[in-house]
């Protein structure tokens, strides 16, 4: 990453006259340690796409889409950067300085580091971290969560038996391994991992749980017929002492709790998650005695039909939550004015299959992608692969653009991060 030094020296030398203060917070689902926030119109959506054999170069790639309505390239792919590998590309995350995106795949241990600051319109691959398996024994990096000067990586599996026993690995921002932390297997812990999220004010780290490589790499139709395999999903969340990086309490949260979102409202100290298999919203908060608890606060759709909630996106004031359910291709909005009793106030079918949902800081724009996992996506005509951009006026989602990832030979569209040309850093 050192190649950016000369450019930065030049930029700093020119601009070394006065300084602005720091900004804290971020778009609604990122680490609170991330330094810069896109409060206005984002310029780019970075899409981490799974390669498809026979489609284009077949590799996983970082796709940059221009999403500024004032741009002549609005709604178009302006850059695509292939990794040359196809490893079930899944999630990504910014470093705390928002200069780099770390991204990885679930069938592999490599982590790709993209520079998105030198030229936010044209990310550049600057590093590949390849020692996760050797150093930690974990497989399938999923969540990349920025801590000051470090990245905490939550894995889904392990290199030994490719089951669900896994943990987190801590790296410094230079990509050097520091330590690993096994998911709890005592006190009710099942050892599974999925997402993590931090509340610094409470020194609280929450983790959730999914399943291992042996399950998530199997075709879904085959998997759900395997009773024994279906028992191998996480049913817990864990509260950790962030400072000590030690689990303090395990909550029973049946049905694979996935994404975790702390309310960003400074008056709140609760987090919410959705369970994939049981289709429920769960709230984690402190009770009147200060004890952390997790409780089922409502259903998402009809759980008996297994709509499979796969992603959530919380409003910046903690008053609303978007939920996407994969099987019915529906995007739902829940009023969280009372997080103890979320109320669904809107729903719309936004695709034949939908997965990730991301909103702008002001909540006026929503981006939706289609792919869950290569072997879990639907087949035939239902296998739509897209990025769709919507506006939200508080009453109606209106589609503004669509990129057909199959037609464009880009692959399966999965995770998204927002970018801005104003974040160019020398």
């Amino acid at each position, binding site marked *: 990453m050192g190649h950016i030094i000369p450019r930065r020296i030049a930029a700093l030398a020119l601009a070394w*006259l006065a300084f*602005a203060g720091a900004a804290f917070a971020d778009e609604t689902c990122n680490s609170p340690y991330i330094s810069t926030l896109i409060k206005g119109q984002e310029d780019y959506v970075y899409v981490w796409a799974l390669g498809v054999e026979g489609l284009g170069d077949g590799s996983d790639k970082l796709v940059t889409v221009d999403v500024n309505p004032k741009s002549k390239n609005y709604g178009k792919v302006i850059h695509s950067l292939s990794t040359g590998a196809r490893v079930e590309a899944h999630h990504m995350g910014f470093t705390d300085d928002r200069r780099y995106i770390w991204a990885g795949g679930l069938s592999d241990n490599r982590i790709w580091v993209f520079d998105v600051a030198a030229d936010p319109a044209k990310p550049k691959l600057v590093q590949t971290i390849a020692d996760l398996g050797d150093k930690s024994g974990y497989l399938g990096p999923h969540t990349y969560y920025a801590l000051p000067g470090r990245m905490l990586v939550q894995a889904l599996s392990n290199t030994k038996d490719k089951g669900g026993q896994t943990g987190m690995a801590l790296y*410094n921002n230079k990509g050097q391994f520091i330590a690993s932390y096994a998911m709890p297997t005592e006190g009710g812990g099942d050892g599974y991992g999925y997402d993590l999220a931090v509340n610094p004010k409470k020194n609280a780290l929450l983790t959730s749980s999914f399943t291992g490589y042996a399950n998530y790499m199997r075709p879904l139709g085959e998997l759900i017929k395997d009773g024994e395999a279906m028992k191998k999903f996480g049913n817990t969340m864990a509260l950790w002492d962030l400072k000590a990086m030690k689990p303090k309490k395990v909550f029973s949260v049946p049905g694979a709790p996935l994404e975790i979102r702390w309310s960003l409202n400074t008056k709140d100290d609760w987090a919410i998650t959705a369970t994939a298999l049981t289709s429920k919203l769960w709230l984690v908060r402190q009770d009147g005695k200060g004890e952390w608890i997790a409780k089922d606060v409502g259903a998402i759709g009809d759980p008996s039909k297994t709509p499979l909630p796969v992603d959530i996106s919380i409003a910046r004031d903690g008053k609303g939550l978007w939920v996407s359910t994969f099987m019915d291709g529906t995007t739902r909005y829940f009023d969280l004015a009372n997080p103890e009793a979320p109320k669904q106030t809107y729903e719309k079918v936004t695709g034949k299959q939908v997965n990730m949902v991301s909103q702008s800081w002001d909540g006026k724009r929503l981006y939706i992608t289609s792919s869950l996992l290569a072997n879990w996506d639907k087949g035939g005509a239902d296998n739509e692969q897209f990025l769709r951009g919507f506006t939200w006026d508080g009453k109606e989602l209106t589609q503004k653009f669509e990129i057909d990832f199959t037609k464009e030979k880009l692959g399966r569209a999965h995770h998204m991060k927002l970018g801005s040309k104003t974040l160019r850093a020398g």
Partner: protein
Amino acid sequence: MSALKYARNAALSLALLLGLLAGLLGVSALCAHQPEPLPALDFVPPAPGSYTLHRIMPAPDGRVLDIDGRSQPLSRYTRGQLTLLGFIYTTCVDPEGCPLAYRVFDLLKAAIAATPALHGKVRFVTLSFDPARDTPEVMRRYAGSRAVDTSGGLRWYFLTTRSARELMPLVEGFGQDVRVPYDRTSGRARRELSHVLKVFLIDRAADIREIYSSLFLHPQTVLNDIETLLMEEGSRPLRATETK
């Protein structure tokens, strides 16, 4: 409760009280920023020694200028003692930036002064990342009495650099973000820069062991970390020449 822990808690309480009084009474400090009270932690931090502070990365080295304008290697200020280092610029007014660090450093200084067991074991370093403005003389004025105060068993060094070229390897090495905002309409770099507060706890062998942002920078957590590193040294005596 260990004697050190008892003394530290008492000292921290005293320091927080002094800070509170200073804030309430508007007592002016002798230097650029006056200490203000900090809210109490909203959690019970883990006890010193009950957790591990991993070696995050080595602290970088480079040339710096002290307040007399002498060029020194930064390593002179990052080895041999526990070091709390923070980047600042003297014109910073963001309450969650440099002033916050200054308040925390002031409160910590008072706490350490009141804890003899910590005397001679910790130093503070305040390093400017605005060499154009923050000359050694400006840093001297910014520091006020802090730069010459040798009481309380702690030295506080105020450093700057000769140029951006000398500074940038340090900024990059520490991972201290400094950004050039760009104007959306013109596409040109704006005159100001932005940064995010980071404070680094460095062990005697010059390894960075903790990085605090404004969300986690509190005298209580820093003191716990200092004690944790001292307890670690107590169980495994550090011999710097073999460590590095």
